[in-house]
């Protein structure tokens, strides 16, 4: 007892704790292959001892069943609770008429107040625009996280560099010399981009809007990269351009909405014309906001594709 306390005080470690830490720790600045080899050797040495082998297998078996049991049990419980809960909820709007207050105004006066035929657009970009401002930044945050993870740099490209480049290089999976691919790309790409633009520009009048239209346009960009090769796309769509487009759209979105919030809260008129309902130029701020969101989404989609495929946007890795 006394010696164990002494050991604890001195900062010594239990053997089990030691193994756990050694097993999980990883030296950051060493080649990955070397670390892997070392770990493999250690593991082999360790596993050679038969008793340990048996013990590990037994404990693995036990915990495995325990985990499965707990997982199934908690899922079943959650399903049961949710089903029971739904059965006891009042039927929306029928048994609980007071809940219709907000919805009624959106449906009945939405067109007049927002100028948008598509009430959903009016709701997300006018009544509850603050939530959508957050939502478009969720996408941007995801882009930043993927950039951090996948953009090639000195740290995540340390080991096995040549292999990595060989696999990722355009020659390896390149389809851009394939005649069918090129022809299909040539025919489809303009249609897809045009359709994307249509969806974005008509967000206030029908189903669609920035998020869906942007995704369609992003698909068009991805197709062009696949059909004509990254070299062709890189000539126009550089990292700098992508950053500038994202910045301009997002900051326009934030500042424009900030302006509307500011004017609304202080009781001033914001001087944004509502337009004729049904026309392209209608719905007040909804159209420009949809365009901004659409551009951000398209850039993000293409950025994801490019990062996953080769670890950079727009050709070179700064």
């Amino acid at each position, binding site marked *: 007892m006394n010696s164990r306390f002494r050991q604890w005080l001195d900062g010594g470690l239990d053997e089990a704790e030691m193994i756990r830490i050694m097993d999980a720790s990883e030296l950051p600045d060493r080649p990955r292959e070397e670390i892997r080899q070392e770990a493999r050797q250690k593991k082999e040495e360790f596993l050679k001892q038969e008793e340990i082998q048996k013990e590990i297998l037994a404990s693995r078996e036990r915990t495995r069943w325990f985990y499965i049991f707990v997982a199934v049990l908690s899922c079943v419980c959650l399903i049961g609770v949710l089903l029971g809960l739904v059965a006891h909820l009042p039927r929306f709007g029928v048994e609980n008429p007071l809940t219709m207050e907000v919805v009624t105004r959106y449906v009945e006066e939405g067109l007049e107040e927002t100028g948008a035929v598509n009430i959903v657009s009016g709701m997300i970009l006018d009544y509850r625009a603050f939530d959508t401002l*957050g939502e478009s930044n969720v996408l941007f945050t995801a882009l930043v996280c993927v950039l951090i*993870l996948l953009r090639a740099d000195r740290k995540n490209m340390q080991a096995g560099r040549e292999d990595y480049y060989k696999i990722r290089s355009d020659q390896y999976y390149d389809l851009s010399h394939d005649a069918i691919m090129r022809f299909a790309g040539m025919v489809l790409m303009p249609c897809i981009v045009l359709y994307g633009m249509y969806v974005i520009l008509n967000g206030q009048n029908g189903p669609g809007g920035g998020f869906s239209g942007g995704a369609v346009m992003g698909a068009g960009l991805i197709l062009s990269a696949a059909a004509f090769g990254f070299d062709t796309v890189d000539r126009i769509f550089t990292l700098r351009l992508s950053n500038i487009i994202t910045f301009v759209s997002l900051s326009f979105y934030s500042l424009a909405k*900030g302006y509307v919030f500011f004017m*609304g809260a202080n009781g001033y008129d914001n001087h944004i014309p509502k337009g004729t309902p049904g026309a392209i130029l209608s719905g007040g701020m909804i159209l420009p906001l949809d365009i901004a969101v659409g551009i951000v989404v398209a850039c993000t989609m293409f950025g994801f594709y490019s990062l996953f495929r080769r670890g950079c946007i727009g050709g070179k890795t700064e």
Partner: protein
Amino acid sequence: MSFIRNFPLFTIVLSLFSGALCLLISSKAARIYTVLLESVLTVMVSMTLWYTYTTDSAFTYKMGEFPAPWGNEIRAGVLECVIALTFLIIILMSLLAGDHFLRIDIDESKQNLFFSLVSLMTAALMAMTWTNDIFTGYVFLEILTLTSCGVLIVREIGRTTLAAVRYMILNLLGSGLFLLGVVLLYDLSGHLLMVPMHEAIARIAEDPESIPVIALSVGILTIGLGIKSGLFPFYYWMPDTYGSATPASASLMSSLVTKAYIFLLIKIYFRAVGMEVIRKTSILEILFVLGILGMIFGSVRAVSTGSINRMIAYSSAAQIGYIYMGLGIGTLAGLTGALFQIVAHGFTKSLLFLTVPYLAEASGNSLLFGSLRGAARKDRQAAFFFLIGALSMVGIPFFAGFPVKLLLGESAVGQHSSFKLLAAMLGLAISTLLNAMYFIRTLILLNMEKLPEEASPGEMKVRSKSGGVQRIGYPFAALVLAAANIFLGVFSWTLVELIRLGLAMFQ
């Protein structure tokens, strides 16, 4: 209308704008810009605090042309201002003190991305603090989840990626449950804004049959936020997450991110559902028990762990337990203790997380206790700040941790259930003892003579390169955090007064 009323909106919009701007500018410019931005926001929030304090009232701010039940709304009272100000000061200090390690840990080409994430995180923290709308809370909670994953993986070593994956899975589970809770509450009440929702739920709760439905909806939402904030038994993601992140990120995540979730939970309890409805369910009792279990088990794990960062991370789990215990006591006094703990623990934990890496650097970049022997002799400055943090964590009088324990103890005495009184006292006593045990041990270890080389146990280097960068920001930032600790310990009544005032405006 006073111009100051616009400041909460500016804090959110400016931070969102800066998130996009940092993508465009160089790392060096982004560093300076972000520090400037956070300073400006701190000034703005201080002025808002002064405004709400002098006018002795909270104000709501319409986001756009449409009034309350139809459009979004934010709200600022004394309590929101205190929490937002705490958040901003800690962000600023973390950036200043962690700068030395940011330059080492993050690849040069990605540092601007880190600052972009910090700006977005600021926006999310501010929006979650100011929001008067439960769905806005969900949207910015998503941003907070993603940004905290981002500041974790930005170090790009195996361990952080592993920790981030685990953190991400657990957090998404939490977000999903929270969203389910929001949907159920919306289905019940037909509102997303807190005030109308409160009125609708109060009307529904008059029928005793509807209490179980409300309890389950709020319960699902609470589990979601509980997972995200590290309530017992969901704290297992903490040690790897905090232990391996770059110091500034560890400080941001432990001091701010988890607290923002808890503050949102308190806000929903008070302003959206109503405490009188919550008290009819057994949610508070469950939170109380889980809080005490967290206090004890977190401390036990902290005693037995082998590296100093993991010890502090487990101690965070215990400290989160204090907050939930205060909330679970169910009285205003208990809640005052919990809110005091949010502020006090924020200042203390960030100080510790920002100080420990310097001690490790002084003793060969290892975070294992064995290698840390004698680190205090090599780096007197860091050792001094660690001492202040440790004393505050243990709860020595004149440091921020002491009033927390006093307030929580007082509130336990002030309520009627004898079970709660006994459990709270026992929990506080055991947790404080264990706290003292592992912090005193660490202090002794830091001040011992260094052992001869061959006797030192295994290596767990956190960085292989170091030095070369001047540590300019650290002494200043650590001094501010330490001063805040001592101020909260000595003049604890100022904060208690502000919290009471804020809580009075809250309902």
